[in-house]
């Protein structure tokens, strides 16, 4: 009985100290991070259940109610083609969240792989890869994304590819620096001594121990990816009409600013709140995952 209760206590302690639970516990204490999670949650629900939540078809034009101001019937008003803005913003959440997640996944997969290779093997591989990253970083993000889309052509997929490529250097740098730090540690040497191969060491021992900065960077990068994609949409190089993308909606409403300011206002607020959500969560995660702050509260 005593033995059993001690095992339960040990288990409880082990659970409490687990990284995930500890992070969640610390995040819950951070008011701003909670706001971030709530905002992301809101947009995630809108994105997933858009069909059920949106009151109207987002691309159906209604010539009898063109540029209607916000009212009970259309809470966010209608646009120049009589489309319900609230419905377009709800469906726009799906587009923006998809862009954020897909493009960051592209950056993550390539960035982590390249960072692991550069940091682990060092030497010529490292120099070569990092010089390529330097070149990519030599062009401002928006400009690089614009240049890539200029070649690939406008469209939703190409936007995701362009925004994704732009994020690769950031991930590569972060992973590389943490690999360099970890690869000399004793447990990696031990793994090597028992005969573990390069791939196993890189993935099982190094990557798993450099997850914290990668998680933080991913969250913050989703925010900038949403912003960049909206910028491309606004410039006419991103998602194409009639797809309800927030940047495109802003661009459509530009010329009607004086008569129908709501067409521009609401998509902008949506972009800002979703980006804010990811920025708040990213900041919170950075604090929660920082080993120097761990256990301090």
């Amino acid at each position, binding site marked *: 009985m005593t033995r059993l209760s001690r095992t339960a206590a040990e288990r409880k302690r082990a659970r409490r100290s687990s990284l995930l639970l500890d992070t969640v516990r610390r995040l819950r204490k951070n008011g701003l991070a909670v706001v971030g999670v709530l905002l992301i949650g809101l947009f995630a629900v809108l994105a997933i259940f858009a069909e059920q939540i949106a009151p109207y078809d987002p691309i159906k034009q209604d010539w009898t109610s063109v540029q209607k101001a916000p009212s009970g019937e259309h809470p966010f008003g209608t646009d120049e083609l009589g489309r319900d803005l609230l419905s377009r913003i709800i469906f726009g959440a799906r587009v923006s969240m998809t862009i954020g997640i897909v493009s960051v996944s592209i950056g993550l997969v390539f960035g982590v792989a390249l960072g692991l290779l550069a940091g682990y093997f060092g030497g010529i591989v490292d120099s070569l890869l990092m010089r*390529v990253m330097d070149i990519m970083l030599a062009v401002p993000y*928006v*400009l690089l994304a*614009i240049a890539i889309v200029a070649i690939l052509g406008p469209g939703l997929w190409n936007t995701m590819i362009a925004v994704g490529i732009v994020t690769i250097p950031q991930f590569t740098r972060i992973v590389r620096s943490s690999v360099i730090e970890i690869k000399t540690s004793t447990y990696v040497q031990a793994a090597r001594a028992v005969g573990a191969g390069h791939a196993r060491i890189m993935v099982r021992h190094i990557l798993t121990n450099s997850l914290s900065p990668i998680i933080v960077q991913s969250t913050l990068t989703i925010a900038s990816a949403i912003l960049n994609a909206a910028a491309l949409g606004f410039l006419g190089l991103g998602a194409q009409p009639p797809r309800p993308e927030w940047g495109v909606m802003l661009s459509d409403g530009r010329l009607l600013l004086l008569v129908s300011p709501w067409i521009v206002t609401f998509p902008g607020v949506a972009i800002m709140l979703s980006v804010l959500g990811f920025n708040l969560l990213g*900041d919170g995660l950075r604090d929660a995952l920082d080993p120097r702050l761990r256990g301090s509260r």
Partner: protein
Amino acid sequence: MLKYTIRRLIAIIPVLLGLLVLISLLIEFIPGDPARVMLGQHVSEEALEILRERMGLNRPFIVRFGIYLGNLFRGDWGTSIREGRPILTILAERIPATFELSLAAMIVSSVVGIAIGILSAYRQYSVLDYTGMFIALVGISMPVFWLGLMMIYVFSLVVPILPFGGRLTTGVALNSVTGFYVLDAIVTGNGPALGDVLKHLVMPAIALGTIPMAIITRMTRSSMLEVLRQDYINTARAKGLASRVVVLRHAFKNALIPVVTVVGLNFGVLLGGAILTETVFAWPGLGTWLLDSIYARDYPAVQGGVLFIGAAFILINLLVDLSYAWINPKVKYD
């Protein structure tokens, strides 16, 4: 210091060369026939052949790259297909507008950002601190183009006190000496033009400066907080120095290094953000020109524009690095 500067300048060469390769590859990756993409579907085979010949599209990539590189060194950046003028001439016309806007945005963002950052750190966990940090967080999440449009709505349409686009009102006379209108107006002693130019500059500068302002605010605050905990700050306080002196002279000077890095790095970001801001405010700079070139598939112009912005970005980053030694004598380069 001189040795370090030379070494850094040499280190720039491979990066610039890489950037050149990347930009030259632009055309290589265009799906289909680049000449047809640039000129459109309804042109004669002769016209296509002339363009192919002029751009060296009939030759292998490596030859074309060699020719492009050679021409660049001779000061020939190619000719814009859309405008039929040398790209370097167009760049020279456009650069002052973009730099003037970026500089104005930099000044706005640094002054406001550093001020809020210092106040927030000085009164940590006060209402002031929370307000400052909230502004910074919202600023970082704000789409520049949306903020621009909202400002136009409020200050140009609802309460029309500021012009909504361009650099100068039509009819206002200004002799262009440098292309930097503020400077031109001052040099020629043209008061009315100066007022008009500044009025045109206000909204684009604020819109473009918002994100850097937010970043600078956060950096200044955290850097100040770190310095304010140091022993020499306590010593300064113990000596009975006024709080203002301690914060500004003892703390801020030492907190400046990371702030300068952020300010410098953001100048490059501004050059990128300028594309969006210029579009919203019809600002006749590099950004609008580059975008028009992209829409018109004027690839030589796109190459030139991207190359110029990339090179400017790299050089600014180098200047930021070198300025450390000037701010902090403890930083030594060897």
